[in-house]
């Protein structure tokens, strides 16, 4: 039997852990008839969050989740592309396209190869939104407010609406909002519930600020992957393919549930006005692509950021087409699209060698 040491630093209750790892481990064990077992480490039990790449390279874990923006220097292409997430609105298209692109694009494959890891599955988050302790019912209300922002593009957007971006660890969002150190925090809406933000942030302005997809939901240590038999790899890839869909649906549901339950915790949820939506989409359309190319060139030293972004956009378009007309809650249909057009086309015997 083969044992996989897997590490994801979100808690067991987080959708990326709950569906992507806890449930997947059971599915995998059953699908392999007990041949493959997963030793799951959640939180920082095995590795600190920002060591989920180095720990994977060194074989401390054989499989990890990793937030790519934690290691921008190691993952220049990933960080360049992640800027584009601000303008993406659909979690399925995003996660499927990211997975496809990261598995098949030669530049991405070369990057993972040089890092000594094998990419096996991507993810995306539900739309980032804004949760405030002060009454906020429009972008105008956010002028001068201190908003916890997850990264430089979001920070730039905050500046563009006259707000003050603040960098605070996610562990301090709650206290920051409670004590008035922060006026708002931007994150996926499930944090209202999972981090109890609804106790302290009574106003959610539900404006979509894009998906976050940097890094991976699944990547293997290359030596470990190399020791797996083709049959084992096949089972792993197939179960990941299906689990990915369940995880994305579970993640969206968690965010929607939190938004739905929020009013019963005294939270006022305001839907973004057409005007604010238009302004944000305009920012996304005009600034985000240029920022990605600029950062890719100046900061991340990607050889051809324009080409990289163009190829990624082509992949996005391809998946928009493939997913056209498919109900985003229809797990079976989504699974079929993903498997038929991506995972079943991966040659398990040669992939990642």
């Amino acid at each position, binding site marked *: 039997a083969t044992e996989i*040491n897997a590490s994801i630093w979100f*808690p*067991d*209750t987080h959708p990326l852990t709950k569906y992507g790892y806890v449930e997947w481990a059971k599915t995998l064990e059953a699908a392999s008839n007990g041949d493959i077992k997963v*030793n*799951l*480490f*959640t*939180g*920082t*039990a*095995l*590795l*600190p969050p*920002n*060591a989920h790449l*180095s*720990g994977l*390279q*060194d*074989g*401390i874990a054989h499989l990890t989740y990793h937030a790519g923006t934690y290691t921008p220097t190691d993952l220049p292409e990933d960080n360049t592309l992640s800027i584009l997430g601000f303008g993406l609105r659909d979690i399925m298209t995003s996660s499927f396209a990211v997975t496809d692109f990261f598995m098949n694009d030669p530049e991405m494959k070369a990057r993972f190869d040089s890092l000594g890891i094998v990419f096996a599955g991507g993810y995306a988050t539900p739309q980032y939104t804004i949760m405030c302790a002060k009454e906020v019912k429009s972008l105008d209300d956010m002028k001068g407010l201190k908003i916890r922002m997850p990264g430089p593009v979001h920070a730039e957007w905050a500046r563009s609406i006259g707000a003050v971006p603040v960098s605070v*660890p996610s*562990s*301090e969002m*709650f*206290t*920051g909002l*409670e*004590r*008035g*150190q922060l006026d708002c925090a931007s994150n996926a809406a499930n944090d209202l*519930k*999972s*981090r*109890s933000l609804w*106790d*302290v942030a009574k106003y959610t302005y539900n404006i979509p600020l894009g998906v976050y997809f940097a890094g991976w939901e699944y990547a293997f240590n290359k030596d470990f992957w190399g020791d797996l038999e083709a049959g084992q790899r096949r089972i792993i890839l197939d179960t990941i393919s299906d689990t990915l869909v369940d995880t994305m649906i579970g993640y969206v549901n968690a965010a929607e549930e939190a938004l739905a339950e929020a009013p019963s915790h005294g939270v006022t949820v305001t839907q973004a006005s057409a005007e604010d939506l238009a302004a944000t989409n305009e920012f996304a359309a005009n600034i985000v692509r240029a920022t990605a190319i600029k950062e890719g060139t100046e900061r991340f030293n990607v050889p051809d950021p324009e080409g990289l972004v163009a190829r990624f956009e082509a992949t996005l378009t391809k998946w928009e087409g493939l997913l056209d007309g498919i109900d985003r809650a229809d797990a079976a249909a989504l699974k079929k699209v993903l498997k038929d057009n991506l995972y079943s086309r991966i040659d398990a015997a040669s992939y990642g060698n």
Partner: protein
Amino acid sequence: MDNVLIGFIGLAAGLVLIGLRIQIGVAVGFVSFIGIGVILNMKAAWGMLTAVPFNFVGDWNLTAIPMFLLMGYVASSSGLTQGLFKAMRIFLSRLPGGLAVASVGACALMSAASGSSVATASSMARIATPEMLRYRYNPGLATGVVATAGTLGSLIPPSILMVLYGYYAEVSISQLFIAGIVPGLLSAVMLSLMIITRVKINPELAPRVEEVFSAQEKWDALKEVWPLPVLVLGVLVGIFIGLFTPTEAGAVGAFLAIVLAAVRRTLSWPVLKDAILSTLSSTAGIFMVVIGTVLLGKFMALSGVPTFIAKELLMFGGDELTVIIMVTVLYLALGMFLDSIGILLLTLPIILPVAREAGIDFIWFGIILIKLLEIGLITPPVGLNVYVMKAALGSIVSLQEIFRGVTWFVIIEIVTLAIIVAFPLLSLWLPALMQ
């Protein structure tokens, strides 16, 4: 070889090295390095040394530790605290062990301004213990009371441990905070009662002040009291009206202590230099231990020892009380060797499902777990708060003296725990009132 067996051998080897007087961080860190190498391979073991020290130390939340240390050192080396204890000496002189009782009160006050037990014990170690030693208190009592009352830092809000637990168990952190208030105050009262009783039986522990004080003396003493309350209140009020977070409170507190010393004209370059050097020395000492125990935590996680122990203990599982007794035994055992955050992170995935099945209230359960983790901070051989006392006091008191001193406190802490377990309302009444 079985990984669990490797884990137990590693634990034993670590204990032997500690017994041979090798510094604790090195002893458990080295054993963990080798243990990880045996379980995985040497490349992974080397990799862990990349993953842990830098990433662990470079953490915003932990900056509270040197800052609260600095606050305490400035306060004590500039004599900011002397006035308070002078007054305590006068007003609590009739109370057996008055200064120790006053220390409990001061720790409780400090806990309301600090998120971590280690930070609380660090600052109070320099404020309260030297004063007690000056009045010829038994060194075990003088150190034990602060090491123990320092653990209130995690029970009285704010609390880093509660934030972690709330995050994992998906319960409201603010409710956890509120739930901790009554058990925290109860712990303080129990500690005080124990001190008074013990000193009554054996007055040598804390010599009584026999002098008679005039009204003028009392009034003069009162006038010297203000610096410490102003410091703690300044920090508290700042946190509660939202000027700064509990993490930043340490820096503000250190700054405020310097300002207060300047106002009282007791600030000088030697005083400041002494405070800075002591802070650096204590911080480096504490973090060497923390890094070692964090590495040990990773080694233990890989070996499966915590899971093994949990399974063995929870085999008897079932009803509420059995689960709590098993968890108590588990946490007291792990608390002997591991740091509190490590224990919490390693065991929650195992024990939360068990607790859920037994129908235990997660807020109440969280308070119980934190109380258990607090007890682990003062039990030998790895008792972080005891090491903090030792690091803060240098050669004045030996480690075994402090451990001997905390024995009584461990017993009373377990009694307090039993009360918290027996009366869930103590934890749940305030949060329920809120809703």
